[in-house]
């Protein structure tokens, strides 16, 4: 049972990495970013390419993977999403979906359709109270908590974070103060995409790697964001970990039903809560 809880925390951490970007993009720009799957998968594929190049070192390869996503997400933001500001949500959804299609096809072109192997960088286990825990999952959880604290600090203490929080509340008000909101939005978009890549890089070793891998994870992240509230950063944190726990506990008793259970929880939450988007 303790192991299940740890698994729940690690899945929740991954979901948090991916959904925070979605939540930020929606909260600031009112854009549902389907291209998040793309940055997620590209991060993983760059990682796979870089590991042999880095002589098997996981951490530098991971850093390169996350950095590689930044220019791509900048291009997406600059040339597609910025043109769709203030448009109906449907169009942004379709446009970002189109980007995903193109990106997935590019991945298939470069790396092939078949799943690629990627083993966990840390195979070691630690023993506590007579039970063994995989270290890798503990590290994921620790990174997630550290990231949450860092983001909290960023949004509370730095001027950039304060501007973004204020823009989440009232975009036009911030613009009236003479702040160039778009610049900060584009930074948030890049930050969100980089975090998605981080999530992908951390999750790929314990899941399968194939061109369509982003989609199922993105659906889960959307569920997290909807349950936690769009643009609500702390809500996203809580809902990511609770849904991760739901997944882990369901998987313990019925392994195939884990993802479906998340959607059922989402439906129940939506049924009782007013929908704000």
């Amino acid at each position, binding site marked *: 049972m303790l192991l299940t809880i740890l698994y729940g925390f690690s899945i929740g951490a991954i979901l948090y990495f991916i959904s925070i970007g979605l939540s930020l993009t929606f909260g600031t720009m009112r854009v*549902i970013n389907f291209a998040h799957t793309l940055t997620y998968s590209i991060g993983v594929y760059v990682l796979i390419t870089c590991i042999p190049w880095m002589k098997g070192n996981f951490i530098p390869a991971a850093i390169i993977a996350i950095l590689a996503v930044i220019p791509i997400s900048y291009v997406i933001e600059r040339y597609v999403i910025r043109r769709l500001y203030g448009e109906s949500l449907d169009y942004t959804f379709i446009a970002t979906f189109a980007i*995903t299609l*193109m990106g997935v*096809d590019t991945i*298939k072109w470069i790396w092939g359709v078949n799943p690629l192997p990627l083993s966990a960088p840390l195979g070691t286990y630690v023993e506590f109270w007579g039970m063994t825990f995989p270290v890798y999952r503990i590290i994921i959880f620790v990174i997630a908590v550290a990231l949450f604290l860092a983001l909290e600090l960023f949004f509370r203490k730095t001027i950039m974070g304060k501007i973004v929080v204020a823009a989440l509340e009232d975009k036009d008000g911030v613009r009236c103060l003479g702040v160039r909101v778009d610049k900060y939005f584009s930074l948030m978009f890049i930050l969100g995409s980089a975090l998605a890549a981080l999530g992908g890089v951390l999750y790929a070793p314990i899941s399968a790697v194939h061109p369509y891998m982003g989609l199922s994870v993105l659906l889960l992240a959307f569920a997290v964001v909807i349950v936690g509230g769009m643009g609500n950063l702390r809500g996203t944190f809580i809902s990511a970990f609770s849904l991760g726990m739901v997944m882990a506990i369901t998987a313990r008793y019925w392994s195939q039903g884990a993802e*479906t259970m998340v*959607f059922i929880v989402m439906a129940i939450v939506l049924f009782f809560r007013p929908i704000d988007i």
Partner: protein
Amino acid sequence: MNPTHRLFAEPSPDQDFSPKKVRTGLEILIIGIGFLILIPLISLHRVTDFMIFCIFALSFDLLYGYMGRLSFGHLLYLGTGAYIFGLFIKYVHNNAFLAIVLGMLAAGVLGMVLGLIMVRATGACFSLMALAFNQIGYFLVLSPLKEITDGENGFGVHAQSIGFLNFNSKITLFILTLGLILLAFYFLKRLTTSPYGILVRSIKEDENRVRFLGYNTYFYKWVTFVAASSIAGLAGTLTALNYRFVNPNVMDVHQNVGVVFACLIGGAGNLYGAIIGGVAYMMISNFLAIYIQRWEMFLGIALLIIVFRFRKGIWGSLQNLGEYFQRTKEIRPVEGKRA
């Protein structure tokens, strides 16, 4: 000029009613002839396939084009129709007509239940929920219901012939599908030009104002959702009948983009647009995919172009062209007077 294009068409007086009927009849005739012309160009089996997709596109258009709800999980209802059709024929009875009706009903009932939750959402939240439910459905047929649905492999559907109708012959299937698509078109035409249809389009424009006028928008949205899912279910039963085979691919989440693309390229919010778009998409996916290997790339680029430059679609552009010619005709006499 197409009366459906205006938001508030004037209520037509009684003597105006009969030309309207004639006009609808003519339109149905033109669509039927259009599909008949397609037969020599591509094979009969393909035309049936195209028509089934067009029924699906019509149902999607009711939801997206008329009500403004972009569903990224509309294949769920098509898949439900297909599965109920197949399961009924496999386990209960071999009557295809009964199975078609049941498949439609099942999709409608599913739409009723999910619609209760779904129609409260708007915009992207609606799309995401649809996507999530589609994923659940796909998962259900794939693994927990594996004993009945045969999981990934799917199962064959062999409908017995009823009277003179032999469901194994391509011609019978073609005529049946043609009849059903014309029926669906007629039904949707009546629905969308009625006051109810105008109300649904007003909901797309501004739901708050419609609610302010005293209408229970929730109910109207729900009814539209149920209608769209039933028609999608009809398309599903026909898919199963046409391929004589059902497998989980009929509700694969990734395939949803096809119908969105079809609706957009044809012109959303118009029944002809849906049919033209359906045919165009099927042409592209059937023939272009043979020649172009990077086919998803092409689809993505085309979608981006549509979103940025070509929002009205083929039918919308044709309408613009028609209006342009009409305007030039009207202007000419004025210029003549000046001269």
